[in-house]
């Protein structure tokens, strides 16, 4: 099956290829994730026990007004930040600030529902400068 290319709004530039980390619900950096390891620690979270470090996060929107930036900064200091972030909804300024400081490409508002179509763990390539998400929809 040919690779799918989905257009999105590129907010923070950078191009990276990494496994997808897909969440169906809003993600809260302050509270959901361990700031030292990038492991999801929130009890009952759909991705509890998994780590966001080095992954392309795909989720609807960020919860919490100021946590995103602070946590991304702490994670980046330890090399445990996500590889990229793709949001379904318009990006809030706080997460954009964090992405810029942490050097994490960030996109939002993809033309197609990525949460529904990208399998968790599938290798995706995102380009924040061009506003593109590429992945191979055939199973690994």
């Amino acid at each position: 099956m040919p690779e799918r290319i989905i257009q999105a709004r590129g907010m923070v530039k950078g191009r990276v290829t990494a496994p997808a980390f897909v969440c169906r619900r809003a993600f809260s950096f302050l509270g959901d994730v361990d700031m030292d390891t990038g492991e999801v620690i929130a009890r009952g979270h759909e991705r509890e026990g998994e780590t966001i470090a080095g992954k392309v996060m795909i989720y609807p929107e960020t919860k919490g007004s100021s946590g995103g930036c602070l946590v991304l900064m702490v994670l980046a200091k330890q090399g445990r930040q996500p590889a990229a972030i793709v949001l379904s909804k318009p990006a809030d300024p706080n997460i954009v600030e964090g992405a810029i400081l942490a050097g994490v490409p960030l996109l939002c508002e993809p033309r197609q529902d990525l949460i529904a179509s990208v399998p968790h763990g599938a290798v995706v390539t995102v380009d924040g400068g061009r506003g593109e998400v590429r992945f191979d929809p055939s199973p690994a």
Partner: protein
Amino acid sequence: MKLTDSEKRMLSGEHGRVVAQAMDYLVQFGDAFGAERFVEVIYAHYPAEMSIYRGNVEDAVEYAATGARVRVPTTSSTLACDLDQWEQLGCPKKLADLQAQVVAAHRRMGVLGTYTCTPQWLGFVPPKGAYIIAVESSAIIYFNSVLGARTNRGGVFTRYSAVTGRYPLMGYLLDENRRGTHLFKLQLGPEDLRHEADYSALGFHVGALVGSEAPVFDRLPPSTPTQLLALGAALATSGSVTLFHAPGCTAEADTVEQAFGGARPKETHVVTRTELRAAYDRLTTIPDGGPIDFVTLGCPHYTLEQLRGVADWFRAAEARVHPDVRFWVCTNRMTKQAARWEGLVERIEAAGGRVVCDSCPVESHMRTSTCKEHGLKTPQVAAMVTDSCKMARYVGDLIGCRTALRSRDECLQAAVRGRLA
């Protein structure tokens, strides 16, 4: 973004690496949101680095050591502890010592150590139309709405704006984004909107209905600055409101029509005392007559006049705070000095209360997450009475206590009785 020659010089390193880095971040930020150009800001309210956030204070010290200096008058927001009374208020020494390190860093950078959520009470009152950048949701909405200055919800990047004097022209800086969106027809008499708590309840009710959009209040009576501050703080708590219009009280629109810029409201609601009562009830989880262990006034930080009101109440009541109750009235350290001069601090302390500066319960070590990190028992508060919806909402979530929303005088009565009347 299109840069001026001056901005290009800043970006290219002509004013040093720190300014170039700051400009680079701001350009990325402006480009992300499609801003055409920068504007010059005349003032910044800076997010003071707090010791309850990992790496935050260390980052401030590091940044100050690079030689970074602010280019515009810059005040700073609250800290995680009262720098003078941290021990008496139960803050772990490690947290207090770390927090104290920001003072020297801010002095190096030229950031004024106001450590408050209400810099406007210290004379920082930008004129209508002025571009500024501020953190602290209750200050942001006050600057935008009551003063008609223009700011977005500042974040960590406020630091870079302070260092360059620039912010991208976007969001609430633009006329077309400053129009009202939702209409609230108030059917409230003077007895319904008497105390700051009433204004807070109004904001708490409306904020939840508008989310991040802009409410317009029809028939808000002539109101004092602290009443409008309470209204805004609550709007920014139950919603994430950045701007509201109340023709007759706020700066930009003289009529409801003007507030909407000729457009029709997306929604129209009526507000009666029933809705205000519902807001009170939503935030009151302490049963009537139930015991309490904490009373907080000063969210947002109190003025000198408000402190005088508290001191006068204790004198007239000839009463003391109940031994099982901690009573904090929060303000900033400059106002506390003025209050000391007036003999107000002495009176409040003699009655068993504390005038707390630099911080407040919400920003303190009492947060459940912070307590867990420092081996402190939780919850640090069982039942808090306050006249601020913002305080009630946040301590309920972050400290895990029961709360009650009451008028200032009722808060004081509860502090004395040790029970919710």
